[in-house]
């Protein structure tokens, strides 16, 4: 895989995933992940679209300007959909 340019590097050392805290506002993050609304999102996640249920028709605009519709894959392909952001 091509190494990303101009992006932060993962520091070496056995930090077990805690390396990213170097880039965050630690207290804000702790407050956020322990807050009731955010905890509520994680607690509600298993019932949002449960395993075994029908996946909703998700429509997204791709960076190339096309429209992606998850329903169009039905009967054709499996789908792995994941979320992410820069920060």
């Amino acid at each position, binding site marked *: 895989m091509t190494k990303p340019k101009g992006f932060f590097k993962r520091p070496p050392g056995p930090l077990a995933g805690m390396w990213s805290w170097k*880039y965050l506002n630690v207290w804000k993050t702790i407050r956020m992940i322990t807050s009731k609304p955010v905890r509520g999102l994680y607690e509600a996640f298993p019932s949002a679209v449960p*395993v075994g249920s029908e996946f909703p028709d998700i429509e997204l605009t791709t960076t190339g300007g096309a429209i992606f519709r998850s329903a169009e894959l039905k009967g054709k*392909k*499996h789908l792995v959909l*994941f979320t992410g*952001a820069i920060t």
Partner: protein
Amino acid sequence: MHELEKKYRDRDVEFVAMYVREPHAGERGFPTYRNHESFDHKMEMAKELEQLKSVTITLGVDDSSQEQHGILGNLPNMAYVVDREGRVVYSNTWQHAEDIDATLAEMVTNDDPSRPLRPTINTNNLSGAI
């Protein structure tokens, strides 16, 4: 995810990354990033992400009301695996590549037992990109 996409691209598996809200905009490591102000701003930042992390997987953007993201659970790093019948077979609040690999390996092996695949992803060996 790129490693997984490469592994499964010829086995009828579509990978889609959904660009969502910036959870740490303006924090220590990201002082120049702001929360999205409009759909165009969100799309601009999605394109920046695509360049920064050399994203080759389809990258899609939700509308600025985040309706689609909300339907799926509204979390920043969640993952779903859906079979070709449109049924959810795996979901998690975090993208555990090993679990997704194991799920996909089983699915594609069931599709075509003459071409079995085994889980091979070990996240300790990956560089930590999207």
